[in-house]
């Protein structure tokens, strides 16, 4: 090998794997997240096939044994939350958008940023390596309640359980580093003139999500250390026969786990806010009110966690308190959704693909939101807890968040990321196929859940009430709809990679948007701005009276 080739290889490595450029790191997060989404989606395919067509050979996998089924659902949950929703929504969009939208050249700490991705990649590899160890991957549900998760002779996957825990802990470290970097960059490195209320909502939301994550994850980091010691050096933190308490883990987990819902929700809301205002050509209805409700949601998310534990053996008196706080949090969330709908009023709505995704987010998320009331009310939760009703409920929140809003974001910023437009026809085919199939997957599951169908069960043969043919038909319907939804994703993948080379050149500002990222070339060069911008106004100045253009960019002087 001659020196020239070696040098070129070193350069490619430097540029794509060792770069400190926030845009490269964003792409690293995006593509890692997409790869993990394919893995998580494949798991969903396998276990849905087992449920839809019990005990058949699953094409591409084989027979699903009980242990494998448990591992598949555990990994599906863990991957989709920690290795898809978080890296794509917060890390990929946060990394790409924050420096561009606040008008600076990079993150405040580029090398910490790079370290964050490297730790994240390591965590993903540790998780996937658990498929290769003796006993296979952890199968004790993504909540990992001890003693099941703590004792190898209970879960039968002692190495897998430890690898899962280490992977999750590393992932937390990665997002602590990343999130603190986002927060500091947004607080300190804004363009001159960009005041607190001139920051685009998506940046606000990503930063607030990072802060909520930072403040809620600490106790679970402590819990992870305790559980790790229970697994490896025989301490008894969660062992009642030695003075510990298994409920402690549940509390530590959900003290993080519930804010985590809002950690992924807020960036999705932010993305939708950007898309909504651009394609409705409208100023955000009550920008400040949206922010106030966000803060309220952020604070309240810390006081509702035990509604995941109503029947878990907590003191029943506490359930009343957490019921009250849970219904309380519906107040700011409703207000936020209403404000988004009100933004449509008086607009001029263009139904391009990103806008379709954004509207679908609101429409579907509302279903997820209202079904949450059934579960937050302690009385009905007695019956619905751990049934498919709750599966359907949180998929009606997480799919809009991690799939629909992400597609809104990708289709919206794709021109900026890669300099070319996505194909609009393929985009619409993908949209309708995904959203229609999504509803057919989960509406049947609401019904089976209401009929008492419990979750995390690989076969209903043991239960007379659940193995009725009527319920099985619903499960099969759901599985077939999942196959349809998954197959439509190939349309997206084709569109994504085809448009990289053959899409229409995008130009600087294809959507005629006001925020700063649309003032730089697509894709933005290293260092982003040729001349660092100055900001003169808020982010959503559309249809300002007395102007020829219907949009008024943030960086244009009066």
């Amino acid at each position, binding site marked *: 090998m001659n020196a020239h080739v070696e040098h070129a290889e070193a350069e490619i490595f430097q540029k794509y794997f060792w770069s400190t450029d926030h845009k490269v790191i964003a792409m690293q997060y995006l593509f890692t997240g997409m790869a993990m989404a394919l893995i998580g989606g494949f798991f969903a395919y396998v276990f849905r096939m087992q449920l839809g067509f019990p005990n058949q050979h699953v094409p591409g996998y084989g027979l699903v044994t009980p242990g494998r089924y*448990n591992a598949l659902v555990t990994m599906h949950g863990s991957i989709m939350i920690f290795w898809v929703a978080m890296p794509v929504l917060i890390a990929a969009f946060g990394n790409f958008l924050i420096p561009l939208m606040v008008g600076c050249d990079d993150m405040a700490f580029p090398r910490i940023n790079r370290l964050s991705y490297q730790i994240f990649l390591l965590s993903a590899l540790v998780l996937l390596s658990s498929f290769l160890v003796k006993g296979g991957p952890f199968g004790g549900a993504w909540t990992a309640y001890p003693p099941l998760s703590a004792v190898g002779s209970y879960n039968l996957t002692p190495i897998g359980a430890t690898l899962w825990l280490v992977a999750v802990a590393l992932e937390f470290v990665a997002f602590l580093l990343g999130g603190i970097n986002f927060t500091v960059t947004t607080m300190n490195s804004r363009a001159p003139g960009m005041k607190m209320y001139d920051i685009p909502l998506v940046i606000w939301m990503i930063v607030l999500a990072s802060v909520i994550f930072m403040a809620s994850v600490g106790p679970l980091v402590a819990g992870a250390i305790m559980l790790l010691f229970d697994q490896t050096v025989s301490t008894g933190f969660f062992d009642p026969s030695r003075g510990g308490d298994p409920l402690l883990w549940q509390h530590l987990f959900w003290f993080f786990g519930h804010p985590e819902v809002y950690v992924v929700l807020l960036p999705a809301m932010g993305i939708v806010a950007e898309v909504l205002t651009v394609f409705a050509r409208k100023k955000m209805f009550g*920008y400040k009110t949206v922010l106030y409700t966000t803060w309220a949601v952020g604070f309240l998310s810390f006081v509702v966690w035990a509604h995941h534990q109503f029947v878990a053996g907590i003191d029943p008196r506490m359930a*009343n308190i957490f019921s009250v706080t849970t219904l309380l949090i519906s107040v700011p969330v409703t207000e936020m959704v209403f404000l988004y709908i009100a933004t449509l009023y008086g607009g001029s709505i263009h139904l391009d693909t990103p806008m379709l995704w954004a509207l679908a987010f609101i429409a579907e998320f509302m279903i997820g939101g209202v079904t949450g009331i059934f579960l937050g009310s*302690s009385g*009905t939760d*007695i019956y619905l807890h751990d049934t498919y009703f709750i599966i359907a409920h949180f998929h009606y929140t997480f799919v809009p968040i991690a799939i629909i809003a992400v597609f809104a974001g990708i289709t919206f910023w794709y021109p900026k990321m890669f300099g070319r437009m996505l194909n609009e026809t393929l985009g619409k085919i993908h949209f309708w196929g995904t959203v229609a199939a999504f509803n057919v997957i989960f509406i049947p599951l609401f019904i089976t859940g209401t009929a008492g169908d419990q979750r995390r069960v690989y076969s209903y043969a*043991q239960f007379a009430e659940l193995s009725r043919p009527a319920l099985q038909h619903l499960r099969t319907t759901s599985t077939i709809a999942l196959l349809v939804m998954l197959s439509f994703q190939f349309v997206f993948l084709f569109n994504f990679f085809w448009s990289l080379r053959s899409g229409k050149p995008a130009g600087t500002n294809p959507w005629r948007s006001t925020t700063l990222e649309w003032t730089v070339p697509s894709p933005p060069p290293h260092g982003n701005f040729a001349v660092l911008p100055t900001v003169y106004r808020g982010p959503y100045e559309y249809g300002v009276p007395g102007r020829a253009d219907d949009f008024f960019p943030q960086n244009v002087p009066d």
Partner: protein
Amino acid sequence: MLERYLTAASTYAHSIDHLFILIALVVGFWLIAAEGMMFALVFKFRAKDGRPTQYITGEEPQLKRWISIPHYIIIVCDIVILAGAVMVWYNIKQVLPPADVTVRVIGQQWAWSFQQPGPDGVLDTADDIRTVGELHVMVNTTYRFELLSRDVVHSFAVPAFRLKQDALPGRTITGWFRPNRVGTYDIQCTQMCGIGHAMMAGRIVVETPQDHAAWLLRNTDPPVAVEQAPAVSPAMGDSLAAMAAVRR
């Protein structure tokens, strides 16, 4: 509404079903209203040539009313739902009505076992009846259960009773149910408990007093004469009387 999907077989099943319907009506109304509003706005304000977009900040009082008034109504709705939820919860989980019979329910990987009093009506005596996977109870009798786990977290769920309670190792959790419909119902474990989670099924058999007495008799060894049975609890009195009738 829920009964179309699954029988209601305990006294409190209906209160949960009614709460479910109350919530479904309230949130269903708001869901339809909000979705309808959204689609109407998308249709009404779709892009048309020559119609400029309006400049609205969201601070205009006459427009803010469209947000704030529904919002206040929603707070009222929340309070109504909350009142119902707390009432149902209080009656099921916080209050223990006087028990006719006390049974012990023990979860372990991966089976439910039950301990119930024999003819003497007292738990933890020599004539206790221990069963695995099947609990025989008498209709219209208030049962108190003590829930234990031997190893990991399990969840004792009887969907037909609308009953669910996790069993934790190291804790004894007390609850109650009063079956009011004869039949055989599923017991599920609804908390992930390891590789055999799906096999951890049980049956709860709700019997008439006569059938229950016969069952008790079959499982008591040696059969205890009615006259010798000490400390008969009021409810067991019924079944003992029935038992005597069967013997005659």
